[in-house]
């Protein structure tokens, strides 16, 4: 199994990140998102909970930029107010995933032989379960909720990142500069601290950014299935779930929140990839 090296992270061509306009667009979106999370009332056009039955299921128009849902609530405002929860879930899941991956990946590469082999096998086993299914398993045990969603998505994405981190740490461990440091007489602890960890974990910030995008998508997928945050929350996934019933009549109820999620994921990915390129600039 170890002969196959599957990259859990999409390897994105460097040229995408070199496009400055993409980075500016991503940055602008992030600023907007931050604003929506902290002070949604500044961006929203109406009260997200205001029921207005006569105006139900209206297509996007000047009055309601993203249309209205089955209770007449303005979709745009709902999305704005849902930003905080969605981002928290995404960031939380990414955090859980990275921390788990860091632990497992480093142990698998650095611990003494028997422990490292066990951890490595464990990661391989977990990787055999697709991320979504692992998440569903956790939800089946613990029941759907925001907290479960965070852990479920984190758990689901962790094995992939763990493998990646393990690969990075191993590459550093077997590198020429570590051997040169050994030849210079440095102690093992010093080598791990000064060479292996910094070099292996350098791309972590970029990985985190990539993983935020991925986590937001996964979390919303779970909600779409009705297994995440429940309506009437304005969390984007919950909006998807609520809009499911009206796919044929009011497609925008699912398409627009989905579009927002895609845009946020893309922005996170662009920023992450750009960080990756810049970090690698000083190296080979």
């Amino acid at each position, binding site marked *: 199994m170890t002969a196959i090296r599957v990259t859990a992270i999409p390897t994105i061509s460097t040229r995408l990140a070199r496009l400055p306009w993409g980075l500016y667009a991503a940055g602008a979106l992030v600023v907007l998102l931050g604003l929506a999370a902290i002070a949604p009332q500044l961006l929203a056009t109406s009260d997200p909970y205001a029921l207005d039955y006569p105006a139900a299921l209206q297509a996007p128009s000047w009055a309601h930029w993203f249309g209205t849902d089955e209770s007449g609530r303005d979709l745009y405002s709902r999305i704005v107010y849902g930003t905080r929860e969605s981002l928290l879930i995404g960031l939380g899941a990414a955090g859980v995933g990275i921390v788990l991956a860091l632990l497992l990946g480093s142990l698998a590469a650095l611990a003494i032989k028997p422990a490292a082999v066990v951890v490595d096998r464990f990661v391989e086993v977990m990787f055999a379960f697709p991320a979504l299914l692992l998440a569903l398993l956790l939800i089946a045990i613990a029941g759907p909720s925001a907290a479960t969603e965070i852990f479920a998505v984190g758990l689901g994405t962790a094995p992939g990142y763990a493998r990646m981190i393990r690969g990075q740490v191993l590459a550093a461990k077997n590198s020429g*500069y570590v051997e040169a440091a050994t*030849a*210079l*007489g440095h102690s093992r602890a010093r080598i791990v601290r000064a060479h292996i960890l*910094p070099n292996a974990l*350098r791309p972590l910030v970029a990985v985190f950014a990539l993983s935020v995008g991925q986590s937001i998508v996964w979390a919303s997928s779970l909600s779409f299935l009705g297994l995440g945050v429940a309506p009437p929350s304005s969390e984007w996934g919950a909006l998807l779930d609520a809009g499911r019933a009206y796919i044929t009549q009011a497609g925008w109820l699912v398409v627009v929140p989905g579009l927002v999620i895609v845009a946020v994921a893309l922005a996170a990915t662009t920023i992450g990839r750009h960080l990756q390129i810049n970090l690698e600039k*000083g*190296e*080979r």
Partner: protein
Amino acid sequence: MTISETIDDPTRLGLDWPTTRLRVENLRVAFAVDGARRDVVTGVSFALSPGECVAIVGESGSGKSVTARSLVGLAGRNAIVESDTFELHHEDARSYTARQWRRVRGRDVGFILQDALVSLDPLRPVRAEIAEALRLHRWGDRAARSRRVIELLTRVGVPFPEVRARQRPGQLSGGLRQRALIASAIALDPDIVIADEPTTALDVTVQAQVLAELEKMKQRGASLILISHDLSVVAQLADQILVMQGGAVLEQGTAAEVLGAPVHDYTKALIAAVPSEHTRGRTLSPTLVPAAANVEASHPISHGPVLEATGLVKRFVAPDGTVNRAVDGVSFTVEAGETLGIVGESGSGKSTTARLALGLEKLDGGTVRLLGQDWSAVNERRRRRLRPRISVVYQDPLSSFDPRWNVERILLDALRSTEFSKAARRSRVLELLDMVGLSAEVLGRFPLRLSGGQRQRVAIARALASRPSVIVLDEAVSALDVTIQAQILDLLVALQRSSGVSYLFISHDLGVISHLSDRVLVMKDGRVVEEGTPDEIFKRPQHPYTRELIASIPDFDPVAIAAGS
């Protein structure tokens, strides 16, 4: 009538045999990068006749490879190729379309690239690669092509061609692979053959075989264009030589003229820089070696050998269970102030021996003693105390530097265990730079931004930091251009003279070994087959393998050439 028959006897075609097959005048190549124009080749001119070999000699960045590729219209994307004249078989090739070029390549001009391991598709059997030119130019039917492949393999001296043809390049040995590569280039018997560094990265014995093949081609009437940085290789085959540097041709003439009575300073430096048994005791490069006289003597060694290895054994177990005895009973001693050279081809175990001597690899048998003390027998913690006494310089310094660190940090880091105050460390860093001939300006730079020669100097400075008694150099100059290599070798000699440090020098290059070493060990298949002074090894080799090795070295004696061959 086969193609080879027509070439061997041109009168059967009833044509006047043209005297110039290729003619180029004032060839210029430039690249358009980000809107700016970068000139890479400026003004190459020569003519090629049947049975003649024109050699283009230069170091990296000289433009010789770009010139060669422009001659088949493959200078690269964004390349602007211009010339006053460019005639292939009396046709104006300057305005050739892509389709016309495709017709020329493989059929009228054959091209042999360097290193068959990467120049042949590793996923396809050798016969597919050889038959490709035949197929592309619609030569014969399938059966005829199969026969032709066997014929070609036989011609280039590959035994059991029917078996070998079905194998992939990775399954063949280095020599067979290179022959297969040659076969694929001459499949259609082109009368112009261009060989771009055909012998670099090859073992010396394989190199001799390849040169023999090229010589055979010449005798059959093909015209050769040989690109190389290796003057000794060029001296074997070339009738005409062009010396290039920075895109311009600095000197041009017959082989006897250029090698025997060079005019340009660069050519003279190039010739003088080639190390061999004839160059022992003199400097190879014209640049002054910095005041290495300031170097403090390393820790005084009382008596006895610096490094003693007895009966070293190292076995590697492959995934399928087969055992490879990489080092099989090797013994040697390195005395104070001397250089012991270990020479061998790839797979001889010399690099593994070096790693065993450094204590970076666990021994399966035998012992190593450093300065009279147990070295291999103790654990790493005990060894660490002695590590300042022994250092290492690698072939590729870049991979031995932490990519996040600049030169200053690299050197300071090497001093942590030996100097204790910050001030002492800083002054020692400057001292080290001085010793290796680098200015303090490189301190803030990253290794990636340094030239190959500068990087190796930093690596040597790092190795000197702890005032070692012995430095292990594993192919330390093999990746450098000849003139840079000459500077580094001079530096190493000067450092040894003033500080008394010993060297354990590993190389596949017999010339470098014979120039530098006081004593030489010849290794093959993990064993030492012969030991002696360079004089003994080169003039009176005893072991058959040593004899073969010495015989394979292309003979390059500029003094003899100058005297009039």
